[in-house]
């Protein structure tokens, strides 16, 4: 067991830190990525990263990456959050679709889709859920039927909760190609340009009033055979490898929680009144959230070491989603408790000079609230843990 990084990885960290310190936009410079203006600003940031090969460090060099290992990726993430890097507008593509592509795409597909994804030229949204298929993804009804000439498909149906859907160029999702097949069978994984005739986008406003996601309607949308990822009818298997990365290691680097937990300690130091039982109560919540963030980081390193040793991630990964989502919520709930009646303020309190401000915490809280819901609600996740790790019978 060796929990230190070798010189090469430390050098990588130093290089990343220096680049990020020089390039990360100052706080408040970019508008929210859920606005049209902010979306383009964030896209420009992706391009800046891409130009110096920081946008997809773990990818092969031919697609714009640095071909580094899992620990370098974790190091980069730590540095990215440490530097206060902007939210990644290309996240759905880079962290969800790309791992699936590396596993299932043809060489031609990789050459076609990965470079513009890495460059931020093509931003992807996810066509997963449908109005009647949320936690129960197997209930997908959107369908793909062979076109008249037999050289492609026609998509019809509706997807919802498509993050970044309002402004994205491309959508990936699963459609039913065999209407006679039940539930998990007969689904196929498609890549669809959002400007294709027949695609209609209706943005959905979130709790904060911004349009973080969208409904996407498909009416007679023509797609070619080479827009299928994997084989026809194999969409569920292909999709689950993406869902796995959404729920497992690759999406959720621990850096967000470690960084927020560090800020929570600063906020506690600045805001706790120090004595009295109330401070104690909050202190315990703060400490618990801080420890949980640390535990999540350690668990990730543990899993990464398994991966680096050539083992598979294992069913233990089904615990991850429950833990990071609750840790995120615990960190932000403790922060709001420390902020007390000021927690509700959208703008910094003019009287709170030099102190930690509520605004970012409130944003973070709203973001964290979605954690137990998306990527499979935590209720579904608990079923999975009970069934896969403990062998309990299906309900």
């Amino acid at each position, binding site marked *: 067991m060796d929990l230190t990084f070798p010189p090469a990885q430390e050098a990588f960290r130093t290089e990343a830190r220096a680049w990020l310190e020089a390039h990360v936009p100052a706080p408040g410079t970019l508008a929210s990525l859920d606005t049209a203006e902010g979306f383009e600003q964030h896209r420009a940031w992706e391009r800046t990263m891409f130009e110096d090969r920081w946008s997809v460090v773990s990818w092969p060099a031919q697609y714009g990456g640095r071909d580094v290992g899992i620990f370098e990726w974790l190091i980069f993430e730590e540095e990215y959050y440490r530097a206060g890097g902007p939210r990644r507008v290309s996240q759905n593509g880079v962290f969800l679709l790309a791992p699936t592509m590396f596993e299932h795409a043809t060489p031609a597909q990789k050459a076609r889709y990965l470079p513009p994804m890495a460059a931020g030229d093509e931003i992807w949204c996810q066509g997963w859920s449908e109005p009647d298929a*949320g936690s129960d993804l197997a209930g997908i009804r959107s369908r793909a039927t062979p076109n008249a000439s037999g050289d492609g498909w026609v998509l019809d149906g509706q997807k919802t909760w498509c993050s970044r859907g309002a402004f994205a160029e491309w959508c990936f999702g699963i459609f039913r190609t065999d209407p006679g097949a039940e539930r998990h069978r007969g689904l196929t994984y498609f890549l669809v340009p959002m400007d294709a005739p027949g695609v209609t986008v209706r943005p959905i406003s979130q709790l904060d009033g911004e349009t973080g996601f969208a409904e996407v309607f498909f009416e007679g949308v023509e797609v070619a055979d080479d827009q299928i990822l994997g084989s026809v009818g194999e969409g569920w298997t292909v999709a689950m490898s993406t869902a796995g990365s959404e729920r497992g290691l690759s999406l959720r680097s621990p850096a967000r929680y470690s960084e927020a937990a560090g800020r929570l300690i600063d906020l506690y130091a600045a805001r706790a009144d120090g004595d009295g039982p109330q401070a104690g109560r909050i202190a315990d919540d703060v400490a618990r959230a801080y420890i949980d963030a640390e535990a999540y980081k350690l668990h990730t390193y543990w899993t990464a070491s398994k991966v680096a040793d050539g083992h598979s991630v294992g069913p233990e990964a089904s615990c991850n989603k429950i833990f990071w989502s609750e840790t995120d919520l615990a960190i932000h709930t403790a922060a709001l408790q420390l902020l007390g009646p000021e927690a509700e303020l959208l703008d910094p309190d003019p009287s709170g000079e030099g102190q930690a401000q509520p605004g970012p915490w409130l944003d973070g809280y709203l973001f964290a609230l979605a954690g137990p819901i998306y990527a499979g609600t935590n209720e579904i996740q608990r079923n999975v843990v009970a069934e896969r790790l403990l062998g309990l019978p299906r309900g």
Partner: protein
Amino acid sequence: MRFAFTEQQLELRGAVRQVLARECTVADLRAMALGDRHGGAGRTHERWSVLAELGATGLLVPQAHGGLGLGELELVGVLEEAGWAGLPEPLLESAGLAAPLMAAADAASNGGAGSVLGRFLEKVAAGEVVATVGGIDVTSAGLVTTTTPSPEVTQGTVVTPRVTGASVAGVALVALNLPGAGWQLHLVEADPDGVTTTPSIDPTRDLGTLEWSPWPHTLIASGERAEAMLSDLADRAALFSAAQLLGLTERMITMAADYAKERRQFGKPIGSFQAVKHHLANARVALEFARPTTYRAADSIARDLADRSAHASMAKAMASDAADLAARVALQVHGAIGYTWECDLQLWMKRAWVLSAAWGDAPTHRSRVLSHAMAAAAER
């Protein structure tokens, strides 16, 4: 021993419920949330008038000043309904906090209808003027003022942040605690120029910063007398926010239960899954036990019992916890839908977040209860 509301109390509450169902619709709240402050204010005026007609605005105002001269138990029922309906106006602050304090100050000054306080009180009771309070917050260590005096203050400008209903209030009772000079309570008349709006996560919340000047004629109490009045205000604030939280909680649970009956996944309504049932049952149990705790606190304040502060703190602690739990559970049951602006839940949920943290959150009030219980134990 009879721990129940009277028929009259239930009737008043029922009347408020009926009126708010008509005057405080989801569409009204949405219009307000969308920043249609002008339209919202229009409805605000109408709503306030019908509440005044029912006597709600002057519920605690003595009959001599045109009020109903009723007590805290009646107002608790009314505020539960305000929570249920998502009423955005500062009924809690105006009828529950400012009015009884003004009446107390008036009585102490041997005022009467002719005095400044008395005249305001009549307008407040009649619904012509909205009153609010500011400058005071509750911590486990005691009351603190949020009003910031400028360094050279004696007649200078002071700043009071986070005043609820600031944009509609015609009069505000504001606390400050001057270094050396102690507590003061001022009656400040509205000055639209002196109000800066403060955006809150709750889009229907009317929050603002007051800039005002203390003058001898605005001072209505100082020193121990002011402190006693503010302690009374803190008890009432805990009680009445608990009451409103009960209504918010019940509404959120109802919304989530309704949704759970309708929404289907895996071939059946999600409400038939144990995980959903147990989430909602836990919230419902929390509500069930927060209720009598709140009603007892109302009775204790109405009778001015020695334990009133502890009873009010118990109510706020339980109601805040119930509301926080219900908000979290309702969101989880709604899933992604609950995370959207289009879902009505957000209007109640944000209100619950804000009111749960206001006037001392649950741990704050629990620490107050514990101090009280330890003092009582030491006396045994």
